């Protein structure tokens, strides 16, 4: 145990996800040795986040303004909407540079154990968007786990009555650049079920 503020700092850092007691200690002593200017930048960043992060009014992604960069970009295809769980999923898909449409961030997945139902997710906003804007395809890109799959099923049920709207789900299967032998049984099994004619 260290004395006073240093231990307080270590305790606070250690409470963050992915940071164990050893890493917390390392970060704390790194901060002690850092310039005051750098520390102030960190403090300002934290304060700004604490004051309230803004979320895009359209898609729910984190934004610097009332709408996010993607929703404000006229070059993006307004007919396509990709539904994801978290803002970090938007980043992941953006890195592919394959998708030219827009996003809708749900803010999680159906998770009754944690008390998350459809009302806690931005599903109403999604339905509103589809009713209001001209959208032809919704791509469901929730996580391929129990909760993500349940959310996908729920969305399909809600979306199937919109005329002329096609609803698709991301394919699941083998990772590229990997060896077949290293794939786990579940993924390989899925890849078999979802095989396509060539």
């Amino acid at each position, binding site marked *: 145990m260290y004395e006073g503020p240093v231990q307080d700092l270590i305790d606070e850092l250690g409470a963050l996800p992915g940071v164990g007691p050893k890493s917390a200690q390392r970060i704390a002593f790194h901060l002690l040795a850092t310039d005051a200017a750098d520390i102030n930048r960190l403090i300002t960043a934290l304060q700004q986040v604490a004051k309230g992060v803004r979320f895009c009014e359209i898609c729910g992604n984190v934004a610097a303004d009332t709408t996010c960069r993607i929703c404000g970009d006229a070059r993006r295809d307004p007919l396509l909407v990709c539904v994801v769980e978290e803002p970090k999923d938007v980043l992941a898909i953006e890195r592919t540079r394959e998708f030219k449409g827009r996003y809708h961030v749900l803010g999680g997945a*159906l998770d*009754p154990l944690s008390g998350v*139902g459809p*009302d806690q997710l931005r599903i109403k906003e999604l339905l509103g968007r589809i009713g209001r804007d001209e959208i032809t395809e919704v791509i469901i890109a929730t996580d391929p786990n*129990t909760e993500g799959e*349940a959310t996908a099923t*729920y969305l399909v*049920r809600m979306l199937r009555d919109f005329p002329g709207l096609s609803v698709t789900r991301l394919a699941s299967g083998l990772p590229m650049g990997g060896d077949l032998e290293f794939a786990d049984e579940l993924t390989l099994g899925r890849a078999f079920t979802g095989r396509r004619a060539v």
Partner: protein
Amino acid sequence: MYVRHLQVTDFRSWELADLPLHPGPTVLLGRNGQGKTNLVEALGYAATLSSHRVASDAPLIRRGAQRAVVRTAIVQDGREVTVELEITSGKANRALLNRGAVPRTRDVAGILRTVLFAPEDLALVRGDPGERRSFLDGLLALRAPRFAGIRSDYERVLKQRSALLKTARAAKSNLSTLEVWDGHLAAQGAALLAGRIELSAALAPHVAAAYAGVAPESVPIDIRYRSSLGEQVPESTDVTELEQALLEGIARVRDQELERGVSLIGPHRDDLELLLGEGPAKGYASHGESWSFALALRLGAYELLRGEGSEPVLILDDVFAELDRRRRGKLAEVATAAEQVIVTAAVGEDVPAELDGDRFHVSNGMVTADASA
């Protein structure tokens, strides 16, 4: 297949144990509390990555030690494979296959295949249905590893759905998503159910034959899979049909489920019925009959696996003391036919003479080969 070498470090009571093994029978002799069972438990752990005695890994590590290590050298079809498992308390375990690290520990599960019969197995006959479901699911995963994934997915869906039912009862809301969870419960449940029904049917003749072997004078036995769907369960093991039947079953008990806040239909409410003659074994079977039934379930599983590919290693922990002379002889007949069988006993006289092979004495934390054998 057979285990050529077993070495454990800081496992249970053992600081170090080194056991060279051969095909055929091996007998571990020693007074109670000397660590015989700990050695066969290590073998079972190397096969299934779980202990047959405890649910958590912490008790497996010797008191005062940081981690336990189980090393096995397994020979299959003339090729030798080494599997090394490092069990660390409170941290992820590590596995090495032929001295190389594997990405996931469970990749080494099932390389060694064992069928282990231990005194705890009496709970298969006398215990709750959960014991028998675990027995079936464990055997399913041995035959087709994908069932391990199906079962854990099913349990996850079940937890979520039960949580929803509980809150729905209180708040009368969120019911819009219940049908979504119904669908997933039925889909995963049907896959599990199909596997279990098929397995029970394949296992039944082997278990009946094994029982007739160890208890020839007793009434015949049978096993039957009993689904929570009752009579509505389709005859086939077609997953789509079962899924439909589960969905219909769930719809029938909707009000009851909402009232009680639990999931009432699905493989988690099923049982493997054990029949002794015309009636149920539970509550009616004598101690000897229960014991023989439990043994027959394991031996049946052994015969089933043996008929389907590589022969598993048979492990009989402290079983001969419970059997009379005639049954001992019958069991010895089965055991001597096995490619490798490992037997533990407190006294040498309990072990039938037919099982002559390697003998080891286990005492004071030492394993010594029996010179007289």
